[in-house]
């Protein structure tokens, strides 16, 4: 109900974008994903690890779905009549991108862990 045309759904999107931006910058500075420790050195319990792989896959799938929500918001916002709509459309682009990156990381880890589990199963016990 203001002259700028800002509506409730814009506000949550803008707040999400602000938090995500700050958290991402902090993440990239302090613990960039390309420097993460190897999974092999953590002495995974195979039973725990199997559950963990499932969780990772589920998480990746849910994040892909979430990215699709962001993908829908982009054109809807861009086509909106007010400046707030268009800003929301632009804001949804990096949000969707970050969501996809997170989904990819979860997917990659689940694959790596699966491979690790297969290797440990093939190795004869000492």
């Amino acid at each position: 109900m203001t002259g700028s045309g800002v509506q409730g759904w814009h506000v949550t999107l803008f707040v999400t974008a602000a938090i995500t931006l700050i958290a991402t910058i902090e993440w990239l500075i302090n613990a960039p994903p390309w420097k993460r420790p190897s999974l092999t050195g953590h002495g995974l319990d195979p039973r725990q690890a199997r559950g963990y792989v499932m969780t990772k896959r589920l998480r990746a799938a849910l994040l892909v779905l979430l990215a699709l929500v962001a993908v829908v918001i982009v054109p809807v916002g861009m086509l909106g009549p007010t400046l707030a709509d268009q800003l929301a459309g632009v804001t949804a682009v990096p949000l969707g991108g970050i969501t996809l990156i997170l989904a990819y990381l979860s997917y990659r880890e689940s694959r790596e862990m699966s491979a690790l589990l297969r290797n440990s199963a093939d190795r004869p016990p000492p």
Partner: protein
Amino acid sequence: MGELYSRRSFLAGTLTAGLLSSAAGYVFTRRDPVTLTLATGAEPTGGGRNLLINMWNELNPDIRIAVREIPSSTQDQFAKFTETKADIYNLDAIHIPRFAAEKRIEPIAPRNDTLLLPSVRRICQVEGETERLWAVPFNSDAGMLFRRVTDKKTADRLPDFRAVGLAPGFTGQLETIGAQTDEAFVVNVLEQALAQDDAILDPEGVLSYGLGQWKTALAPLADALRSDRINAQTGEDDTIRAFQNGNLTYMRNWPVWFPGVDRAERARPDTVEIRLSPLPAGILGGQNLAIDRETPHREQAERVIHFLTDTPAQKLLAGYGFAPTGLDAYIDSEVQRNVPYLRVVRDAVEDARPRPIHPGYATFAQRFKDHTYAYLHRGEELTQRFITDIREALQ
């Protein structure tokens, strides 16, 4: 394990909460901007209604009102309004029955229904119905007598319209030159007839079909017009000019013109004040807001109409000379202070008679004008044909 991915979990959680709540907010609370077209006649008071519309537009950027002014007369208002694509119509009271009969408008419930003056409420209904309203009164109106007071020291007795309305010094809309001024002529003739015979048009808008009754009621007016005793003018604007330029004492007009007339007269050294008084029975006028049956924005149109017709809007319009439609505006002490003549206007509106409430009103008005004009100005006798014609139009 958890610590390794805590940042990502946080990010994932933030994105999940933010994107899902935005999506849900979009689906459930999104408001698409709408522009509603309001078809209306000209604004006579220099801004009262436009001010309200501007206020709405400022407060509601998602539902804007675009005003489309359509000059029209009684004969062509239906055609002109309906050939215009509009969401809301600002209708003269006489057009509501036809718009309802032709299914161009839908019933609507006003927000201040219980406070509407009964006479004002009645003209928003159609024949045979006592519950549904087909439009919400925007402003009311009733024919009134303006009088020039030149000396406050002399006693100012309430004038008798039966006498002063037929005497030198009086002006009214008793001449017509075309479709634009015909309705004012019809209204003035009905008021003069009512002054002579209260039963010629009843409070439900039902006309008498007695030829003798009409002849008797109109004879004094015919005499005054043919002998040039009174000043017959075409339309409200010309009447005001004649009143001002001729320094006349009495004028029949609508109260909506009072602030302008009063302001102009107060600047003259020979006028102390303009005062208003009710006619024995004036004709009820006023504009009413109705929703187009085919509008895709009915809910928004209803919100707009409620804003424009509710009590605060009535109080604001009263300051511009519009007669309020509801009791709450008439009894408001602040409005009474700003509009000292409000009590007289209320009496006039409450006692006013509606014109026939019928889809065939335009035809009736045309025939009524043709017969009475010929009688009053050209001296042609009123015959049974007059009664047959008006009765046929209202069947």
